[in-house]
């Protein structure tokens, strides 16, 4: 009865294969390891897109499978970025300070180096002291641990509070949005210890690897992002594939029923919420060294809503849908906002896509929600001829918001 994991989930193998092929092609065409058709900045864009695909998978787990429309996952993404950014910025500044002090007549003391780093990093917000939260910033290992633990802990505490009080549906969405907003506002302060609205910068430079050109580093990060995405896909498929996935989807469709089956629904939600927060944080930790800069604006609620948009357009409730949505929308968005899209002259008015792209995105999002709730991923059903259940009744689950007859017929 029990077939092997890959037999039950053929999409995993296909996905990983395609991902490997993609990575290989980019490497071959890159400037660092190949013929140089693909510019370094494009490699970075592609690497960042892979990270966005990874957080989209997290979003799909929490929303598409567990039914929690979190409007706060970019908070975890950003925190992950901040955690790795602290190490990158501290170590790099340290290298600069040490080399500049090496010229001094007396060898610098540890305090002098620390003060130098403090002035370098925090001078911009009018400080020189290194705040206590930077305690581990000189240790890559500790900061890597923090990448996972800080967002995980935040998700755990927030989730515990929210799920325990049985906040669901729209209320929960708004609460997650409030959480992101609170975090963003907090980080915007100069005395938050993370350089206020300046954020952390210069993250594209790896400490101790000044000789390695960005072209090479960008490919390294592309590989790391692709690996993380593949692994994330595998983990997500494994989580939703078995009985756990059964329970989680049950929670999405009818929370009360799952409860009466004896499952502690809150724990399941908490596990999914925390797990996805950690995936998001890892995605962020890979994204921001490629972007080079992180600031609190990245965490603003709007970012998390865009995340929901990607997953919805790609097709929620299926992992590859989330990946397609994130990749498609973010790349198209880059194309339109980058000024590459041709303007459309209407005679009396010229549509410039830099200005009108958001309008197009907003409206197409409404149309997708209305007309194609399955998203782009729904197209795959045409090929695989996935059977839609014949449903006789009206709404398909007792809870408002569960799958509806109309939707199922799409």
């Amino acid at each position: 009865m029990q077939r092997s994991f890959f037999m039950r989930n053929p999409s995993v193998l296909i996905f990983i294969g395609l991902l490997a092929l993609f990575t290989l092609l980019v490497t071959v065409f890159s400037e660092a390891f190949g013929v140089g058709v693909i510019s370094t900045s494009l490699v970075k864009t592609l690497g960042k897109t892979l990270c966005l695909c990874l957080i989209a998978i997290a979003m799909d787990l929490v929303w598409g499978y567990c039914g929690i429309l979190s409007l706060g996952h970019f908070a975890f993404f950003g925190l992950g970025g901040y955690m790795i950014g602290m190490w990158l910025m501290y170590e790099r500044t340290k290298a600069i300070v040490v080399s500049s002090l090496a010229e001094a007549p007396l060898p610098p003391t540890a305090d002098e180096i620390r003060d130098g780093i403090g002035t370098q990093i925090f001078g911009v917000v009018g400080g020189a002291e290194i705040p206590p939260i930077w305690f581990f910033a000189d240790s890559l290992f500790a900061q890597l641990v923090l990448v996972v633990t800080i967002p995980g802990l935040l998700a755990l505490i927030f989730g515990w509070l929210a799920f325990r009080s049985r906040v669901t549906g729209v209320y929960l969405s708004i609460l997650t949005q409030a959480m992101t907003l609170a975090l963003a506002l907090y980080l915007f302060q100069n005395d938050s210890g993370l350089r206020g609205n300046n954020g952390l910068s210069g993250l594209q430079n790896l400490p101790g690897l000044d000789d390695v050109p960005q072209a090479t580093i960008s490919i390294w990060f592309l590989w790391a992002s692709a690996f993380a995405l593949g692994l994330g896909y595998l983990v997500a498929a494994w989580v939703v594939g078995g009985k756990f996935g059964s329970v989680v989807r049950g929670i999405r469709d009818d929370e009360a029923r799952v409860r009466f089956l004896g499952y502690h629904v809150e724990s399941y939600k908490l596990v999914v919420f925390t797990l996805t927060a950690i995936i998001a944080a890892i995605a962020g930790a890979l994204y921001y060294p490629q972007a080079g800069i992180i600031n609190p604006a990245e965490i603003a609620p709007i970012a998390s809503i865009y995340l929901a948009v990607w997953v919805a357009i790609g097709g929620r409730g299926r992992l590859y849908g989330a990946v397609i949505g994130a990749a498609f929308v973010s790349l198209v968005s880059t194309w339109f906002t980058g000024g590459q899209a041709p303007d459309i002259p209407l005679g009396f008015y010229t549509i410039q896509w830099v200005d009108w792209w958001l309008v197009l995105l907003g409206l197409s999002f409404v149309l997708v929600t209305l007309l194609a709730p399955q998203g782009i991923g729904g197209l795959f059903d045409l090929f695989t001829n996935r059977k839609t259940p014949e449903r006789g009744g009206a709404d398909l689950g007792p809870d408002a918001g569960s799958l509806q007859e109309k939707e199922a017929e799409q």
Partner: protein
Amino acid sequence: MSTLLEVSGISVTFDGFRAINNLSFQIGSAEMRAIIGPNGAGKTTFMDIVTGKTRPDEGRVIWGEKSVNLLKMSESQIARAGVGRKFQRPTVFEDQTVLENLIMALKNRRRPFSVLGYRRSAEDVGRVEVLAEEIGLKAELPRKAGELAHGQKQWLEIGMLLAQEPRLLLVDEPAAGMSPMEREQTTAILVEAAKTRAVVVVEHDMEFVRRLNCKVTVLHEGSVLAEGSLDHVTANQEVIDVYLGR
């Protein structure tokens, strides 16, 4: 016969409306009981209280040999303690297969990480197959629950209930929307179940209740109006008044 569930003196008020008024109720560990009553008598609220969905304003709900207080437990704890509930409308997970539905209900460890590491053992699959046989859905195991006919969904839900291996079954209108043939089979399943555990059936259909051939409790305005055999209660003048109007 030892008492499995003892409800004493519970009352619930919703915005000034007394849904349950000083209700007391007992059931033994292997007993079938039918609860009847007009609309608004408090039948569903009673079930809500036993399963932990609604907290009563006063009263006690005592469970099992160890006399555990159910009012202090969450819904999922009560369910794990051995109270199973079937809703009025069939609520199965339509997006999942019959097999997945039954596996989910199967008595097993319920903690998230145990479930994450769960692998379907041959033994579990065997148990599911036996159950499916019992509820007549063996052939339907790989199908999505949403594709089943209404009566089949009812059975699937009863099957899920049995898979939980509860000591007390709370069944809300199991025969609604069933054909006479299906009713007969449902009766058989319930009667069989009542041999080893307590079964409480809420039902409007007197014919169905008669076929269950068990003790009957009549609820009215949130408290017990009469109790006894069906013939006994239907002869009761008060019950006749309540059902036919004064």
